[in-house]
């Protein structure tokens, strides 16, 4: 049952990701991205990362993608125009893709440490309490630094937006 559900959501995620690249219309791409995020949330939930799943849904699939869709709708962009491909891109594109996939395959097999197969329900440290304790003890510094980083981004955005008004 778990494996079947996992495969279904994994398939949805992959199809949505491909669709995201293939679609020429920005809204269609944004919707596919939402599909990827939502199915990832379902997979997190299956693997025991309950809090991460909820955060993925609330923050990424909810808030951030709403902003994306909002901006696309506000600009009301049409379909993207196709630029003319260069000759070497047409010729070397497919072989380069194969090389890329082969490299990733090699990395996973040889460079990364060997890992056991996934067992559903084996991981239990994914609830809000466990994550909170980890965040405020072991990962306190990265957590605080990230929040400062986000603050810098917000201040930067305000500064940039203000200049245009003046």
């Amino acid at each position, binding site marked *: 049952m778990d494996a079947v559900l996992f495969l279904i959501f994994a398939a949805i995620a992959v199809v949505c990701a491909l669709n995201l690249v293939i679609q020429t219309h920005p809204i269609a791409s944004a919707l596919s991205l939402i599909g990827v995020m939502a199915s990832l949330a379902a997979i997190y939930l299956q693997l025991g990362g309950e809090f991460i799943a909820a955060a993925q849904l609330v923050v990424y699939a909810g808030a951030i993608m709403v902003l994306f869709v909002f901006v696309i709708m506000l600009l009301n962009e049409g379909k993207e125009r196709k630029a003319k491909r260069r000759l070497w891109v047409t010729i070397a594109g497919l072989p380069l893709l194969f090389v890329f996939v082969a490299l990733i395959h090699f990395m996973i097999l040889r460079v990364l440490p060997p890992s056991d197969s996934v067992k559903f329900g084996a991981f239990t440290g994914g609830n*809000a309490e466990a994550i909170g304790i980890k965040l405020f003890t072991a990962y306190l510094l990265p957590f605080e630094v990230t929040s400062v980083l986000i603050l810098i981004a917000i201040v930067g955005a305000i500064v940039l937006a203000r200049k245009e008004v003046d």
Partner: protein
Amino acid sequence: MPYIVLSLIKLLIVVLVLMHTLAYLQWVERKVIAHVQLRVGPRRVGPHGLLQPLADVIKLVTKEGMLPSHVNTIFYFLAPFIAVLFALIPMCLIPYGGDINVFGIHTTMQVTDVSIGILLVFGLSGMGVYGVALAGWASNNKYSLMGGLRSSAQMISYELPMALAIAAPLLILNTLSFRHIVDGQTGFYFGFIPKWTIFQGPVPQIVSFVLFMVAGFAETNRVPFDLPEAENELVAGFHTEYSSMTFAAFFMAEYANMITVSCIATLLFLGGWHPLWPEQYGSSLLPSLIFGVSGLVCFSHAARPARPFDRITLPVFGVLFLGLAGLFLIPAGQQILMPLFWFGAKTGTILFVFIWVRATLPRFRYDQLMGFAWTFMFPAALINLFVTALGVALS
């Protein structure tokens, strides 16, 4: 009994009850608004218009579904689907009562209990905005687009104070599961003040409750925040180009969202299915009293009928009410019905406030709406969260 069969039975019950509530909520809304405005409201179809929802459903189903030639067909049909989907899914995470024993089977009055219930409901109902935004965009119509844009901007803005307002009571209750949230509100102070989060120490969450309700009005696009479908500016906003069942889908989604917000407010702030006053002062007799008196009133009016058909309809309702009163008196019925009664009473009161506000308040101006969210609601929610955190830390 296998888990799947049990879940399917529970789902069936929830869906049946929810669909009827959705249909009759609209009847209640029309009636209440009519009485507020000194009209009588629907009363042609059935006694007091009670069959009006049925007539509306038949009308909407048999209407011709128009497909405007200028729309983006895929997204045009996807939008109402998304809106309804994410309005209905949260319903299966909400508990309607405690543990019960039916025919020897021990179960909970909830389709499924997840440990992150409130976050999941919040996330799922937040996804509903895509339905509205997409509908506005795919309709390829300037009024619809304005409605869709307003809706997404409004949702992003009000989700923040809403999340902060939810966080404050969660600090006190220290859990994210709906079941434990309600369990944390059991008991009474001095034997009569219920330990609901709006009364519970160290910091009573009345401010959070008000903020949550205001944000809830905005999230469900209800008056006074119904800018996405402001009739006098945008024709009908995001659903201008929709007709027949696709229009009905948006209608259903709006009412389902209203019910979800009311349920969350009940669970989080008003103690879920816990009674208003302790059982030793007779809180378990209240439903029998209400239904019994209603039944007797029906019979007394049937004895002196104002209209000819009252002689038939009123005794039927009288027998129904008395039967309900009897059900609340037998222990087996009481065990199942009491939590449902209190849950329904609290949720119904909040739903009534939704309708009451719609009949009373005028619509905001758009800049007022945004200014209110960012300059008042957000700081107020932050201060409230800070005070609550301080109270929890010191106690």
